[in-house]
């Protein structure tokens, strides 16, 4: 459990971004050196890229890496910083909730209408699953972060 908590997104991301790079490198090699293009590599790499983005969104919550403007919130007294963080996490969760709800309906429809990718012929539903899965993980990470902030408030607001 501890291992999963620490490495789950990270290992997934390392694998995804490695395959993504290898695919494009292979594609160039095949076209230029062998003279015969792989026609599905670009498509697969693109879809992995989408998964990297959405799994990475969860990883970025864990790493506190999401880009935001803190100039205004910093004007509040230091002791409120945890409360402000909790509030931003909740807003983040609202967004996740909206997208997950719409995303599930969307993915279900796309699976049902059986749209297939142009080169590989795989169901496009798997691509649309990326934000649903990524943001579900994100919700878990946000709950974790909120828990840490509450803990910090209760223990005197020194550390998060």
């Amino acid at each position, binding site marked *: 459990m501890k291992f999963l908590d620490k490495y789950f997104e990270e290992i997934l991301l390392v694998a995804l971004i490695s395959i993504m790079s290898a695919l494009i490198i292979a594609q160039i090699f095949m076209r230029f050196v062998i*003279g015969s293009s792989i026609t599905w590599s670009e498509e697969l790499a693109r879809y992995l890229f989408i998964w990297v983005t959405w799994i990475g969104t969860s990883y970025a919550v864990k790493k506190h890496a999401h880009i935001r403007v803190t100039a205004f919130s910093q004007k509040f007294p230091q002791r409120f910083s945890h409360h402000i963080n909790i509030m931003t996490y909740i807003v983040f969760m609202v967004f996740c909730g909206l997208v997950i709800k719409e995303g599930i309906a969307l993915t279900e429809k*796309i699976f049902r209408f059986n749209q297939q990718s142009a080169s590989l012929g795989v169901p496009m539903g798997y691509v649309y699953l990326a934000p649903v899965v990524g943001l579900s993980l994100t919700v878990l990470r946000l709950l974790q972060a909120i828990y840490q902030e509450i803990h910090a408030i209760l223990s005197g607001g020194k550390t998060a």
Partner: protein
Amino acid sequence: APEITIKAAHAASATNTGHLALEYMDKELRERTDGKVGLEIFPNGQLGGERELIESIQLGNIDMVFVSSAPLASFNKQFFALDMPFLFENRDSVYKVLDGDIGQELLSSLDGVGIVGLGYWENGFRQLTNDRQVVHTAEDLKGLDMRTMENQIHLMAWRELGTNPAPLAFNELYTALQQGTFEAQEGPINLFRDMRFDEVQKYISKTNHIYSPFVVLMNPEVQYRMSDQQQAIFSQVFQDAKAYQRGLALEADEAATAELVEKGITITTLTPEQLKSFSSQMKPVYDRVEDIVGADFAKRVIEAAQ
């Protein structure tokens, strides 16, 4: 503003004949419904590329679109039948298929995936263009690095003909042709002119290898927003727009050809024997299409096109 606004979108330019046809529809609809029904048009892929637009029809985010048939095949494989190379000899044979039973069957088959197929406008016959040499026969294609659409039948056909085909984002194509990453591409002559490919390609061979229609699609919900009378008017306006658009497309094709010749592009018309050197190699491609759409359907399409 009209009571019923139909949101129409497409990925072509605002000077494209398809766009002009939508504007025509908007004008006619307003006139014939006392201003109660009209279109709001989003050109240039403002609301997404063709694949995304078709999807938006299914999801009900957009009311009406026109797209080429190639991306439609991802939604309904029967459309691969239109990608059989060298299927159509001329426009008469195109209209026989598209406006006849086959075309209607294809449109009706979209019902199952949440799309109403309205009919076919014209994108154009696709031509081969390159920057290396005048291409007369398939012999001249050997090893040509070529950009194609992301469609397995197109890719397979060009591989059979000895080129080295690969898909590429259309946005990137000009630069890729300029720098020589690709030496050849294929598409309607109109689009070639609009995208300024004449600055980076010298030779056009009139292969007419595939006819690309614009397939006009609608979200099924839209008809319920209109009264019976308005629906009847809409159908009539669509039919009028079809004739109007096809006329414009033909003119645009001829105008583009004349303009390109003037600019010094070598446009080569191929003899039936020369075309044969391409089409005679298409057996494996036709077999593949048969596998996908069913031998019966493929046969019927081929017969209807004769």
